């Protein structure tokens, strides 16, 4: 089912007309109301009238997380505080958090975007969705919550944590859809195994995973463990929260509601816009947000875009899985390494559970001299023959070295050595922090 065919099946030309009209209005509004944008447009020598074609968006300046930091907490806001009905915030683990204000209009738009996203994923009014994204400042919990209610399905606001209760409610209330981070989906499947709950005997039929990078192999692993299809969603606090894109059951890229978000791919080094299909940094312009719109926000996420209409009938552009972040890239003795590559190798070596940690000896923010990969030994891969255990370590190491192109050390550690996280999983740890 398509909730809003007037947007989701719009021919590209018509869509671009709509985007241009909305972009021009938004740029004009920001130029008048937000001193930061007024200055930025002036410095770039661009005015709303210069936007004659959708490709003219490249004339506009970029914004980044740094601009949110410099204008902390609410310097980028385009409306007076009295119009704001809610404020969310990013976790801000490494820096000052990003503050995200919403008007009533934003809350309504967001709920509609999520209701549409859930429909894209095949969720209907009949479904019972257990929302195990964290409630509170994090956009994931409340974002999904309002979307499920808007759709008219049933939401169980379990939030994250208390995994035993999650499983009890999942069985007793007949949950059909589980929404959570991929790492929490793994925690739930582990707990189910420990409690002797066979998830295949429950009504669960679908899991929506997002808010954290994950690989295709991790998806397959979660699908196997939960016994249901897993669809990915993507979002970020600066753009709104969850709902920026989501997969349909064909699992061939995440659909972007382009009437609300204008997406581009750029070369992270030069800032040049790249053509469809090329991999690069995702840049988002919000077209309908009121309280805190963003123009050409650099997400630091690496992906590519596909404008071909999807088998599901939608013409919305599709984003490929996020393959890395421009800022979690490690440079090990001159070679670029993404944690996602390491995860893929671990999943490929048969039986190795995706609990791992990368211990680095940093020389600068990105560069490190050495990496050590800690892998948990679980029941499936344990053998009481020493040569088999040593062989496992060697196989992981040789596969790692051939894929990454650098030599690494692999350390097998006891079960539950690596901290389980209920929020965003931290995969890369400095040796000095151990």
């Amino acid at each position: 089912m398509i909730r809003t065919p007037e947007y989701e099946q719009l021919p590209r030309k018509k869509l671009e007309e709509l985007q241009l009209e909305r972009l021009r209005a938004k740029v004009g509004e920001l130029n008048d109301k937000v001193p930061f944008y007024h200055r930025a447009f002036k410095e770039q020598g661009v005015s709303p009238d210069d936007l004659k074609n959708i490709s003219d968006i490249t004339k506009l300046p970029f914004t980044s997380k740094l601009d949110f930091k410099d204008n902390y907490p609410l310097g980028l806001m385009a409306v007076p505080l009295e119009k704001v009905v809610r404020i969310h915030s990013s976790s801000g683990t490494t820096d000052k958090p990003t503050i995200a204000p919403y008007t009533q209009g934003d809350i309504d738009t967001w709920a509609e975007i999520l209701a549409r996203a859930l429909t894209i994923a095949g969720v209907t009014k009949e479904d019972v969705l257990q929302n195990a994204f964290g409630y509170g400042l994090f956009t994931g919990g409340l974002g999904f919550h309002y979307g499920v209610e808007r759709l008219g399905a049933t939401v169980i606001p379990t939030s994250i944590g208390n995994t035993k209760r999650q499983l009890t409610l999942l069985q007793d209330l007949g949950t059909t859809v589980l929404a959570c981070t991929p790492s929490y989906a793994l925690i739930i499947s582990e707990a189910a195994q420990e409690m002797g709950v066979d998830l295949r005997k429950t009504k669960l039929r679908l899991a929506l995973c997002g808010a954290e990078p994950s690989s295709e192999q991790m998806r397959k692993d979660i699908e196997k463990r939960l016994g249901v299809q897993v669809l990915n969603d993507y979002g970020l606090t600066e753009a709104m929260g969850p709902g920026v894109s989501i997969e349909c059951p064909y699992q061939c890229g995440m659909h972007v509601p382009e009437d609300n978000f204008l997406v581009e791919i750029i070369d992270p080094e030069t800032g040049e816009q790249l053509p469809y299909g090329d991999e690069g940094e995702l840049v988002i312009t919000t077209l309908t947000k009121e309280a805190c719109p963003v123009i050409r926000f650099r997400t630091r996420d690496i992906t590519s875009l596909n404008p071909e209409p999807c088998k599901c009938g939608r013409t919305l552009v599709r984003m490929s899985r996020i393959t890395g972040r421009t800022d979690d890239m490690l440079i090990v003795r001159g070679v670029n390494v993404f944690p996602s590559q390491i995860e893929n190798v671990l999943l490929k070596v048969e039986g190795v559970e995706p609990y791992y940690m990368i211990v680095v000896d940093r020389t600068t923010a990105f560069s490190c001299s050495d990496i050590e990969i800690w892998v948990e030994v679980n029941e499936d891969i344990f053998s009481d023959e020493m040569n088999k255990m040593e062989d496992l370590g060697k196989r992981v190491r040789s596969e790692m070295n051939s894929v990454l192109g650098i030599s690494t050390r692999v350390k097998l550690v006891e079960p539950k050595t690596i901290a389980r996280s209920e929020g965003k999983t931290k995969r890369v740890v400095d040796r000095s922090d151990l």
Partner: protein
Amino acid sequence: MGLKQVSIFVENKAGRLVAILEVLEKRGISIRSLSVSDAAEIGIMRLILTDVDAG
């Protein structure tokens, strides 16, 4: 008669043997025989216990 053996994966570092002995002690289980094989970083402990099923 068959004997059941418990094999445990441990890291080769100080304190791992004590950690396992403490678990057994709490449950009042004794060890009849113990063998440990070790490599540079890992080890495997093989135990035959007084109470096989509790172990």
